[in-house]
């Protein structure tokens, strides 16, 4: 396959996401402007200029009207997808580390880092009307986190619950109405880097620094599968059409020279969802892969790396014909 290499960022990529219909690919990086691309040919539609710090997280609403990004400049901004103009801005007390639109698009959740005396907090805000008063509105819910900080977040079923992954490896379910912790799973031994849902939102996969990715049930946090590698997994995604998961990782740039003779392990690895066995690898990145995402139709996938490139791969026929023998 001939991947498209998208070179719109000058610093490491932090997250990439497709919109619901898959025709747009959004990417955020440690440089201050998230980019949006047409996923079909890699043509760049535009950039969202306004942040003044590394953009850690992004999300797109269901109808691809609004785009949300959280950055290290202590702001969460909401933009209009079609024109790139900033619609709303919330100033927080520390860097915004994760964010997500609810399934309905009426609410958004974001978390802030634990820094400078302020604890890590989960904010839930109303996003039905986004205008200049957006920043002044009170959040619907505000949950302080006393133990390890939140590193990734997902909305649960029916927008009633929130799933959080933490820096100590725990995964928790929070009830939205009460703000209480409903369930906790302590499976990972190190930081959860990324969590992504599968297509029907019944399961989600967590990528962790402890060199594994795990599959959980979304309702009760039952641990289902473990995918083991030899290096930290930065991101994982579940294919919407086949029983495959893709893991992206690699050592942190500063560790590369101190360990292993191989020149870094910068490939995306494909595992079988059920058998937990690796069946394929795709090379190409010049640095650790920080984010992977499947196209909603499952026929292509993208990966964003520490090198600042986003690579969009469309699968060959051999990928579909590959039969895992058992």
């Amino acid at each position: 396959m001939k991947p498209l290499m998208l070179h719109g960022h000058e610093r490491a990529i932090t997250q990439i996401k497709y919109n619901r219909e898959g025709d747009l690919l959004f990417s955020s990086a440690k440089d201050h402007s998230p980019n949006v691309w047409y996923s079909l040919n890699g043509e760049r539609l535009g950039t969202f200029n306004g942040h003044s710090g590394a953009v850690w997280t992004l999300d797109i609403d269901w109808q691809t009207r609004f785009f949300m990004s959280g950055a290290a400049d202590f702001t969460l901004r909401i933009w209009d997808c079609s024109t790139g103009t900033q619609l709303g801005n919330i100033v927080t007390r520390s860097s915004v580390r994760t964010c997500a639109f609810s399934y309905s698009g009426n609410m958004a959740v974001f978390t802030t880092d634990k820094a400078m005396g302020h604890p890590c907090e989960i904010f839930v805000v109303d996003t039905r009307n986004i205008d200049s008063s957006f920043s002044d509105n009170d959040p619907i819910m505000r949950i302080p986190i006393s133990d390890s900080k939140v590193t990734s977040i997902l909305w649960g079923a029916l927008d009633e619950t929130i799933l959080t992954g933490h820096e100590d490896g725990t995964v928790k379910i929070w009830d939205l109405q009460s703000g209480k912790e409903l369930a906790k799973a302590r499976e990972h031994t190190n930081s959860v880097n990324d969590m992504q849902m599968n297509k029907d939102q019944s399961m989600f996969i967590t990528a962790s620094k402890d060199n594994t990715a795990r599959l959980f049930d979304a309702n009760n946090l039952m641990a289902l599968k473990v995918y083991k590698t030899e290096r930290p997994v930065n991101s994982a995604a579940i294919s919407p059409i086949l029983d495959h998961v893709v893991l992206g990782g690699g050592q942190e740039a500063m560790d590369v020279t101190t360990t292993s003779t191989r020149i870094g392990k910068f490939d995306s690895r494909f595992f079988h969802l059920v058998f937990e066995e690796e069946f394929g690898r795709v090379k190409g990145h010049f640095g650790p892969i920080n984010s992977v995402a499947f196209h909603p139709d499952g026929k292509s996938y993208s990966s964003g790396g520490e090198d600042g490139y986003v690579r969009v791969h469309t699968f060959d026929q051999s990928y579909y014909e590959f039969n895992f023998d058992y």
Partner: protein
Amino acid sequence: MEKRIVSKTIAQRKTWPKFGDSHNDKPGPNPATTIVAEDVYMQFITNKEDSDKPDDSGINKLKGMDQNVMKCRNCKGDHWTTKCPYKDSLVLANKAAEEKKPPIGGMEKKETGGKYVPPSLREGAKNTDSMSHQRRDDTLAIRISNLSENTQEADLEDLVKPFGPYSKLYLAKDKNTNCCKGFAYVHFKFRADAAKAIEMLDGFGYDHLILNVDWSKPSQN
């Protein structure tokens, strides 16, 4: 130009004007931001599936190596040499004898069969001498014959000096008596001079003999 049928919302999004840093971009991908990378293939990691990529992945190589670790030197079986089940058999001894003979025969030919070859004639011989051979071998040399017995180098020099510069004078002399053997070679620097010398000196009366002067013929080696 490709035509695709997509849902209405997707088609509508294609018409959005570009914004931000892409504001001034023309329609179609901007080569500064979008590059088609080289072909990569997914390397399938099962023994049955052949990987598409021509190069072996590191893992496949290691797997292959692992299979060859234990190889008997005698029978190439999957065991160590000392543990070879055919240790004491005659078959093995014959095999070893056969393998030893041909290589020795081949080697002997090369080493003892050849005579001594001087360094200058060995392969890769000195370069400069071959150059000077070239210089001498070409047609700048003339041969003067029917010289009288008491001709000396000085006489020869006086004879050929008026025709032009020369690089070498050689007068054949008898080793014991130092008398001239009757012929000499002169290597001129310019062919024109050599030609003139031949023209003038051939048939010239020198001492009591008539000289024969001609182009020097290359040695018959």
